[in-house]
Structures are given as C-alpha cells and as structure tokens.
C-alpha cells in the first residue's frame, strides 16, 4: 500500500536556516512542502524517505536564500488496484459505505460492490447484508460505523484541484471545494471480504 516515488526539486533555503546542516534544512523544507498532500497521479505523500543526490547550491542576485536542486525519494500512500486492505467504517449513506484508514478518509464502497443482497436502513443509517442462511431464512448482518472492514481496492481517481482563475471561480466555487484530490473505490462482494466478524469462524 505504500510506495516510494522518486522526485527532484529546486529547494529554496532561507538564510535563517543556514545554521542547520544543508541536508536537515532541505529535509525540513521538503516535508513542509509535501507531507500530507496529494500529488496528482502519484498519491498521498507521507514523509521523506531519503535524499539521493544534492546538486550544487546557488545564490541568485537580490535574494539571500540558497537554491539547491535535490533528488529525493518520498514515501507515498498508493495502494495497488486489487490490493486487500483493512479499514474502519466511517459512516454509511445512500451512496455506499465510507471507509477510513485513519490517515486517509476518501474511500467509498458503492452499493453495487457490497455483498449481495444488501439494503440500506434509513433508521439505523447502516447497510445490511441479507445473508441467506440456506433454509429460506434471512439473517441481517449490519455494517455499523466503527467496525473493522476488509475490502479490495478496485479503482482510484485523481482530481486536479488547482486554484482556478477569478472568472471561473465565481461559478464553480462550490464544485471546487467539494472536489477530492485522491479517492479510492473499494468492493466487498467476494467471500472473505466485509466485516472481520462475519468470517471469524469460517
């Protein structure tokens, strides 16, 4: 679920950081820039892994800061498609089951990917798997918030969330705010997937 991404960047180190070792100062700047941010088509950045190469530092006229081109590797959260993950149910709604990993919340399991047949209960605010016990009876299995769930990642979506120009802003403001930069789609419609308690004795 975690990968290393190789990137390069020209890092600007302000003069007040010159008392630090160059490596530490650069690591601090890179983490400030990237930690907990989504990079388009890369994933959710977690923390700097290592610096692989530092090129020469430059000071430009009129700016006291030093500029260093740095090659580095960053730990990125980006589960592979088809990977099995464990998470906690954050909430249920008509759109499906929202799952959270604690550090990453934008996971949705749509109704079509739940165990079949499932229904949504408005009063309980939970999805229910109507498990067929084999003798014609049905056993309701609830998917309550807070339960641990095992699911398969089936798709990922990246959205560009760059600030837009002033004209478009006025019309599309609401749209833009709700955009999720990186979201995952999961499924639990296979035996073994779903709440851990469902399969404990299987």
């Amino acid at each position, binding site marked *: 679920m975690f990968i290393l991404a190789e990137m390069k960047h020209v890092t600007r180190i302000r003069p007040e950081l010159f008392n630090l070792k160059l490596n530490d100062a650069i690591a601090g700047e890179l983490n400030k820039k990237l930690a*907990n941010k989504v990079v388009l088509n890369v994933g959710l950045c977690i923390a700097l892994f290592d610096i692989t190469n530092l090129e020469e530092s430059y000071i430009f006229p009129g700016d006291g800061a030093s500029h260093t081109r740095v090659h580095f590797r960053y730990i990125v959260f980006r589960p592979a498609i088809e990977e099995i993950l464990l998470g906690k149910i954050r909430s249920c709604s008509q759109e499906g089951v929202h799952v959270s990993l604690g550090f990453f919340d934008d996971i949705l399991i749509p109704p079509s990917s739940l165990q079949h047949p499932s229904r949504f209960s408005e009063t309980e605010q939970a999805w229910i798997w109507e498990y067929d016990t084999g003798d014609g009876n049905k056993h309701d299995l609830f998917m309550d918030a807070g339960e641990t769930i095992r699911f398969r990642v089936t798709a990922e979506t990246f959205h560009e969330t760059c600030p837009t120009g002033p004209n478009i802003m006025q019309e599309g403001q609401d749209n833009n705010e709700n955009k999720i930069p990186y979201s995952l789609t999961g499924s639990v419609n296979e035996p073994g997937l779903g709440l851990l308690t469902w399969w404990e004795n299987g």
Partner: protein
Amino acid sequence: MEIVNSKCATLCNYEVMEHLQSVRDGKNRNKGQLATITYETLRYLENTPCKEQNSTAIANCLKDLEPYNLNKMEKLMLINTTPTTPLEIQLMVEESEERLSEEDVEKILQTLIKHFPHIEKKENEVNS
C-alpha cells in the same frame, strides 16, 4: 517539482512503520502536516500485524515462500495483512484454486505462523 519516477519501489508496512517511528522520535521537532500524518499513519500501522514483525523474520519468510510462485504483490499482501485462514489466501492470490493445492495453502499458513508467531496468539484470544 518534477516527478522522476512515480513508483520506484514498493514498501511493506513494516518498513514504513520503522521509518516513521524514526521520524517521530527524531531530534528535530516536527510540526504541522508532517506531525499529523506521521501520527495518524503510525496509529494505523501499529494496529496491523507489522507491529510485531522484524526485518529478519520478513526476509526468512519471503525465502520460505519462494517455491509457491507468488508474484511480488501477493507476497507483499501476505506480509502486510498476514492471513490466518485459507479463505484469506484465496482472496489475496489470484486464481489460487488453480495455482495452489490445498496442501500448499496449508503450508503457506504454517510458514506465516512459524515466522510471525504473534498472529496465531491473536486468533486464540478471539476464540477464547
């Protein structure tokens, strides 16, 4: 910023946990987003089997898994979310019915328990 290679390696949960712990305990005070994401990720990872793993156990386990012809992703999943039942293996290994015999599956489970004994204990607790 330029992305040279968006995926130059895959890390297992244990490696990430170890690295983040050293970031957390580092001498430089972390602040802002880095502190948040390290804390949240560690809290998640410390609830997974990787908390009890160590690098020699993982290396030995991978060596023992070699004969089963699993691909990298499958082995990674076996390490990250150590299965304890044949059903879980079936989920993680594609077309497992054709590629693995029942004995193989049983042997893989035994191998995992041998290298990561804590997963078995956990199961006993659940049952008792």
